[in-house]
C-alpha cells in the first residue's frame, strides 16, 4: 500500500497496570482524606472565630460579667470581667494590642475572611483531587475492560495527499486489496458488457429486438453501476473523512496535556476525555462497515452519534476549509457513530503545575492547528 499509515493501538491495560492504578487511586484517596482533615480543622477555627466575634460584640453591653476566673489549669476563683470594652489581642509573634470591642471585632472579621479563603482553597484542592481520583478510577475500569488506545500522529499534508489521491483514483487510495480486486473484476465485467453492446450496435444494428434487450440490460447495468460507484464514492468520502478525523484525533492528543488538565479542572462534570480517533490501518485497509464492526469489537464504543458529528464540525474550525467540511460530514455521520475515549499516556501529566493551564491552549492554538475539539465543546456550552 502506498499510503500505509503509521499509528499504534495499545491496550490500556498495558499502559496502566492494574495495581499501579489501584495504588494511585489509594494515594489520591489518602491525599483527599488529609485535605478533609485540614478542612475540618479550619472549619473548627472558623466556628470558634464566629463564636468569639459574637462574644466580643456582646461583652461591652454590660459593665461587668460574673465569671469564674481561671487560676492555672486546674483551679479558678469566682470573680468578674471588668473593663469590658478593653481587649488585648494577640497580633502574632508575641505582640499584643489594646483594642476596643469594635476594633477587635474588625480584627476577628479579617481573620474570618482569611480562614474562609483558606477553606475555599482546600475545597478547590479537594475537588481537584476528586477529579483526579475519578480519572484514575475510570482509567482502571477501562483498562480492566480491555479498552484499546489508538493514536496516530497528525499530519495535515499527509491527509491532503490521501484525499487527493482518493479523489483521483478511488481504487488506490484506501481500499483493501480484496476490495480492489473485486472492483477491478466488476470494471472488467462492465467493460466487457460495454464492448458487447458496442459490437452488437455496430454489427447488428438492424436487429431491434436484440438491441432493445441489450439496451435494457445496459441501462439496468448502468443503474447498477451508478449505484456501485455512488457507494464507492461514499466510501471514498469516508476514507478521507477518516483521515482527517484521525488527524484531528492526533492533534487532540498533542494537546493532551491541556485537555487533560482542563478536564481535571472541570470538576463534578464527569467528563472523561473524549476524542475521536480512527484506527489508521482500519481506515486504509478495510471497508467502512468492516471498520465499524472491528472498531466496535476492539473498542468499547459509546454510541453518541451526535457528539462525534458535532465534534468533527468543531474540530474543523478555523483551519479546515468549509468545502472539506462538507465533504466530511455526510460520510462521517454514517461511518463513525461512536466515540473513543482517549487518554494521554503517563500519569505525571497531572502532577504538572496547573498554572500552565492558561498558557497551553494559547501556544497550541498558535501552532496553526485547529483548536482542540474538547476545548471547543467546553467553550461552546
Amino acid at each position, binding site marked *: 500500500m502506498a499510503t500505509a499509515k503509521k499509528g499504534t493501538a495499545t491496550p490500556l491495560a498495558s499502559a496502566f497496570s492494574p495495581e499501579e492504578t489501584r495504588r494511585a487511586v489509594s494515594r489520591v484517596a489518602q491525599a483527599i482524606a488529609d485535605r478533609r482533615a485540614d478542612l475540618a480543622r479550619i472549619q473548627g477555627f472558623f466556628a*470558634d*472565630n464566629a*463564636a*468569639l466575634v459574637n*462574644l*466580643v460584640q456582646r*461583652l461591652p453591653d454590660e459593665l*461587668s460579667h460574673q*465569671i*469564674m*476566673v*481561671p*487560676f*492555672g*489549669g*486546674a*483551679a*479558678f*476563683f*469566682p*470573680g*468578674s*470581667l*471588668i*473593663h*469590658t470594652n*478593653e*481587649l*488585648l*489581642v*494577640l497580633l502574632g509573634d508575641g505582640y*499584643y494590642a489594646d483594642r476596643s470591642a469594635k476594633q*477587635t471585632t474588625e480584627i*476577628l472579621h479579617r*481573620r474570618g475572611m482569611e480562614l474562609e479563603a483558606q477553606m475555599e482553597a482546600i475545597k478547590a484542592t479537594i475537588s481537584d483531587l476528586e477529579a483526579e481520583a475519578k480519572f484514575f478510577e475510570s482509567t482502571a475500569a477501562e483498562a480492566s475492560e480491555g479498552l484499546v488506545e489508538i493514536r496516530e500522529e497528525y499530519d495535515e499534508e499527509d491527509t491532503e495527499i490521501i484525499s487527493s489521491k482518493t479523489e483521483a483514483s478511488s481504487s488506490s487510495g484506501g481500499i483493501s486489496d480484496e476490495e480492489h480486486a473485486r472492483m477491478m473484476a466488476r470494471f472488467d465485467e462492465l467493460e466487457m458488457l460495454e464492448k458487447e453492446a458496442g459490437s452488437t450496435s455496430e454489427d447488428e444494428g438492424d436487429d431491434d429486438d436484440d438491441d432493445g434487450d441489450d439496451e435494457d440490460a445496459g441501462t439496468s447495468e448502468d443503474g447498477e453501476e451508478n449505484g456501485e460507484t455512488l457507494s464507492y464514492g461514499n466510501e471514498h468520502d469516508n476514507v478521507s473523512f477518516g483521515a482527517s478525523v484521525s488527524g484531528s484525533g492526533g492533534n487532540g492528543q498533542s494537546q493532551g496535556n491541556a485537555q487533560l488538565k482542563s478536564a481535571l479542572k472541570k470538576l463534578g462534570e464527569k467528563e472523561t476525555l473524549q476524542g475521536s480517533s480512527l484506527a489508521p490501518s482500519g481506515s486504509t485497509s478495510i471497508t467502512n462497515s468492516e471498520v465499524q464492526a472491528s472498531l466496535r469489537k476492539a473498542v468499547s464504543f459509546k454510541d453518541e452519534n451526535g457528539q462525534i458529528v458535532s465534534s468533527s464540525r468543531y474540530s474543523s474550525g478555523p483551519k479546515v476549509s468549509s468545502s472539506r467540511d462538507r465533504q466530511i460530514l455526510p460520510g462521517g455521520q454514517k461511518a463513525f457513530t461512536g466515540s473513543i475515549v482517549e487518554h494521554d499516556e503517563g500519569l505525571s501529566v497531572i502532577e504538572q503545575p496547573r498554572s500552565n493551564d492558561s498558557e497551553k491552549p494559547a501556544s497550541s492554538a498558535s501552532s496553526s492547528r485547529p483548536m482542540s475539539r474538547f476545548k471547543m465543546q467546553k467553550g461552546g456550552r
Partner: protein
Amino acid sequence: MAMAVGARLRQEKVKKFEDFVDRRLKPDLVNAIAQRDNLFQQQKTFLDLKKNIENLEKNGVTSMRSMVNLGSEVYMQAEVPDTKHIFVDIGLGFHVEFTWQEALQFISVREARLARQIDEYTHLIASIKAQIKLVCEGIRELLQLPAE
C-alpha cells in the same frame, strides 16, 4: 525439600513476630508514653497551682486582677474580689471549693497519686520496651544472625 519447608516456616514465624512487634507492642508503647506525658502535664499543673497558692499566702493577697483568655488569644481583664476561696478541679469535671490550706492539702495528696501513676507507667513502658527487645532477639535467633 525439608529445608525449604523449614525455611518457609521460619519465614512465617519471623513475620508473625514482626507483626506482633509492629501492631501490638509498638502501639502499646506509644499509648503508654502518651498517658505518662498527660500525667506529667497534670503534675506540672498542680505544682504550679501549689506555688501560686503559696505565693498568695505569703503576700497576703485578698483580691487580684488577671487576664482571661476569651479564645483565639483575645484577653480581657478580670477581677477577683475575694481570693480566700478557690475552686479546684478534683477530676471527672468536679470542682470543690477549698480554702488555701485545704487546697494545699488536696494538692499534696493529688501529687502523690500522680507520682505513683507516673511510676506505674514508667514501669509499663520499660516492660513493653523489654518485650520488644525480647521479640527482636527471638527474630534474630530464628534468622541465625550473629549477636550484635
